[in-house]
């Protein structure tokens, strides 16, 4: 059975590598539509890693909300604002070298920190099985207040998005 474990390990690392490649595609590709598709791939890959971490419910929610809803919204807006040809004009500004240098510094710093910190990995957490039932109970019990706040935020943002994106009826708009 060790060999199956090895297979799943290889699978997880391969998924991670693919996700990173697609993430680079998100920030580096010129055609915005391709970027959005890469983001969808990244999100699906992350959902797979969630499954590997035994968070199946979260993986399903991630796909349902991110890939099903948010990505559709993003692609919709890309279709509305971009020209059909998918222009390939310059998509980055002049800060790119500085950003790379700064970010590599941050990555090195945080990476060494991550490797040096003795994380208190507990056997209890490793063995814990989080079922959908317990998640629901926590959501309705301990975290009832944030849950309600989130619902208020969702309603507010729904109304806000409609109001902002609505066409102004009174004026014809700029010609």
């Amino acid at each position, binding site marked *: 059975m060790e060999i199956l*474990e090895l297979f799943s390990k290889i699978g997880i*690392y391969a998924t*991670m590598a693919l*996700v*990173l490649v697609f*993430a*680079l595609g*998100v*920030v580096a590709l010129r055609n915005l539509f391709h970027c959005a598709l890469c*983001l969808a791939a*990244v999100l699906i890959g*992350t959902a797979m*890693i*969630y499954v*590997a*971490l035994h*968070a199946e419910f*979260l993986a399903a*929610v*991630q796909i349902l*909300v*991110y890939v099903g809803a*948010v990505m559709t*919204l*993003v692609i*919709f*807006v890309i279709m*509305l*604002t971009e020209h059909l040809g998918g222009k390939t004009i310059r*998509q*980055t*500004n002049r*800060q*790119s070298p500085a950003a790379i240098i700064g*970010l590599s510094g*941050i*990555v090195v710093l945080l*990476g060494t920190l*991550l*490797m040096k910190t003795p*994380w*208190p*990995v*507990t056997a*209890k*957490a*490793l063995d*814990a*099985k989080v079922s959908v039932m317990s998640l629901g109970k*926590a959501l309705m019990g301990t975290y009832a207040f944030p849950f309600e706040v*989130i619902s208020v*935020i*969702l309603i507010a*943002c729904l109304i806000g*998005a409609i109001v*902002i*994106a609505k*066409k102004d009826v009174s004026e014809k*708009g*700029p010609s």
Partner: protein
Amino acid sequence: MIIPLQHILIFSLLLFATGLYGVLVRRNIIGILISIELMLNAANLNLIAFSKSTSLAPETGQIFAIFVIAIAATAAAVGLAIVLALYRVRKTVYTDEVNLLKW
């Protein structure tokens, strides 16, 4: 967990850095928004990894991740609505062309 915690943390750090790079250098507002989604995703991954390995109440991390996903959805909705409104008025979605209040 099959793979050690550190590897997942390094992975999410790289993902986060990629997203941050996109936020810093992208000219297109929609590009910036989808880079922000990348960063939020990396944060979520950290939450899950910690809840799986170090947490005392194993649900907590997942519930926070659910909240983050909800917030990300609202951010995307409102942000994209703003982009649409901007496009309608200025006919552009590039940040450096929207410089009316800057001199």
